[in-house]
């Protein structure tokens, strides 16, 4: 009965209860798959948890599963708590986030407002505006590395306006280097924010906006009372995505400054990389990874509960 299998109108709402028998059968049939999925998803995390409780390092010459021989309990976590370099990297990550996410949000919202209406040349501009997002982050890092050389275009332009040669060492001054890497992140990821916010803005019902205008609402009032509230869910999603992604920034930062000068641009990802590759204390890295996982879980948990409230 091929023409019969799709859903009939659901006149009978309480159907779910009636299906409980077949639901139970379904559960048992899919149990192996569910266990497999669970295993694939959880295994790396459980392994991290295990390693994080030991002093294991690849140089010790024992396989990872025998790491218990080097059991140290919560010592890695205590070290982590007292590690100023870890907290420094966390702090810098937060600074980057605190500047990047609001900047990307406001720029993205501004672009979305521009692009939600029709205007000549919209298509070309639209593709152009999305371009940075398509650039491979490593390449973006290289581009900004070039831009901020002391003889690079940024200084050239500044020289032109200043009327005298400007030779700012952008990437070797601790404060300016942070500024430069932040700029590269904003450049690259504003388009994503724009894309998500535009999709949200387009889905705000036209007739409701029209109704607000006919009732005498100004542009700002309409935006504030109709458009923004109806975009709430999508705004939460967009911001959550960028906050989580900000913990992961690596490529462009690493190429532009390598985390330097000193540790001026060492965010948490770069820090982990360095500890993993240079210090080779993997038990400690595992503890760090889990700590960050917990932070990010809290962030996404907050976002999800906010979204539930909004809808």
């Amino acid at each position, binding site marked *: 009965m091929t023409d019969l299998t799709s859903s009939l109108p659901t006149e009978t709402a309480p159907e779910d*209860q009636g299906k409980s028998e077949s639901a139970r059968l379904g559960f048992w049939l899919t149990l192996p798959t569910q266990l497999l999925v669970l295993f694939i998803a959880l295994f790396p995390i459980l392994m991290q948890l295990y390693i994080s409780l030991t002093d294991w390092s690849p140089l010790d010459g024992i396989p990872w599963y025998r790491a218990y021989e080097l059991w140290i309990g919560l010592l890695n976590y205590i070290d982590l708590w007292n590690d100023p370099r870890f907290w420094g990297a966390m702090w810098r990550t937060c600074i980057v986030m605190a500047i990047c996410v609001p900047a990307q949000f406001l720029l993205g919202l501004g672009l979305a407002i521009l692009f939600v209406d029709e205007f000549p040349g919209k298509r070309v501009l639209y593709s152009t505006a999305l371009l940075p997002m398509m650039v491979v982050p490593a390449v973006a890092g290289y581009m900004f590395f070039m831009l901020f050389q002391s003889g690079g275009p940024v200084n050239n332009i500044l020289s032109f306006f200043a009327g005298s040669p400007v030779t700012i060492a952008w990437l070797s001054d601790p404060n300016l280097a942070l500024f430069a890497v932040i700029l590269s992140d904003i450049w690259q990821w504003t388009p994503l924010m724009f894309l998500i916010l535009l999709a949200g803005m387009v889905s705000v019902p036209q007739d409701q906006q029209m109704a607000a205008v006919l009732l005498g609402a100004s542009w700002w009032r309409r935006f504030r009372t109709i458009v923004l509230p109806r975009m709430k869910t999508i705004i939460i999603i967009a911001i959550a995505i960028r906050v989580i992604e900000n913990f992961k920034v690596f490529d462009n930062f690493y190429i532009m400054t390598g985390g330097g000068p000193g540790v001026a641009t060492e965010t948490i990802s770069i820090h982990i990389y360095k500890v993993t590759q240079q210090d080779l204390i993997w038990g400690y890295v595992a503890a760090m990874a889990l700590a960050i996982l917990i932070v990010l879980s809290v962030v996404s948990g907050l976002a999800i509960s906010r979204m539930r409230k909004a809808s």
Partner: protein
Amino acid sequence: MASISFRNVTKRFGDTLAVDDVSFDIRDNAFFCLFGPPLSGKSTILKLILGLEQPDAGEILIDGRPVTHIGPAKRNVAMVFQNLALFPHMSALDNVRFPLVERRMPKAEIAAKVSAVSEKLHIGHILHKPPAQLSGGERQRVAIARALVRDPAAYLMDDPISALDARLREQTRVELRRIQQELGKTLVYVTHDQEEAMSVADGMAVLRDGRICQTGTPEELYRSPNSTYVGGMLGAPAMNVVPITMASRLSVDAAPRGADQLGVRPENLRVGVGEAGTIADVEPMGAFTTLTVQAGDTTLRATLRGQPKYTVGQPVGLSVDPGRAHFFDEGGAALESARREEERT
């Protein structure tokens, strides 16, 4: 060709009785309509006929054969969906062939069956077109052809034309009835539109909360509803149901014993000279005019032929066509009218 019978069928979803001790017979070749408001159990009955749901109690018979525990694939009933569900990327022909191709039937046999069904439905000349190029009526025929190509014993439709606008609905329901008459197969049809139900069906069941209130021909149900509910569900504007104390004001006498409510169809309410009520609204519809009359605390509606001149606020007298008053007891069940009792003796 098949008759379909329900014997005390009950279907529960958790604590909810979706179908409550339902019995009815659909005779062979009938155009049978299940009519009721949303959640009255119509669609559950369709699913029970199809075999998509199993009854908790009772028995379902197709052609006298119990099918209660036979799966949907072996029941040989077909379904035409509300939105027709034609595949837009296939020609009409491929749509019609689809169920047979899926069954890996030999090609020659498929061709024979498709040509037989398309001849019956007069769609031979449009089979090469994709659904997008067909008119609404043609699409309907193609969808029916696809359902019938397997030669099912009966076919079912769940509110197939409710999405169309008023004028198209009027055309399509006549078309549906014509198709059913030409094909001569049992058709079970679900609708919540009373005019559509009365127009197409030659037998119908009125449902409420999973129970069947009354079955019969549309005319029987319209003329002698067995309850205020059935009286109110059929006919537009709906039957006026007023307290029996209004009887004298409407010049109705000979109410049977136990009568608590009086039912009068708008077309049986006569408006004349008098002081029984005042006109509250006049709705001219061209062919007829609907008056809303305020009589004390009671609002009554009357449908008059043509375009009589009445103005809002005008006092009018009211009476009921002889023998056209319906009487109901306190619970809303119909009582035999005095006239009908007379006729019997």
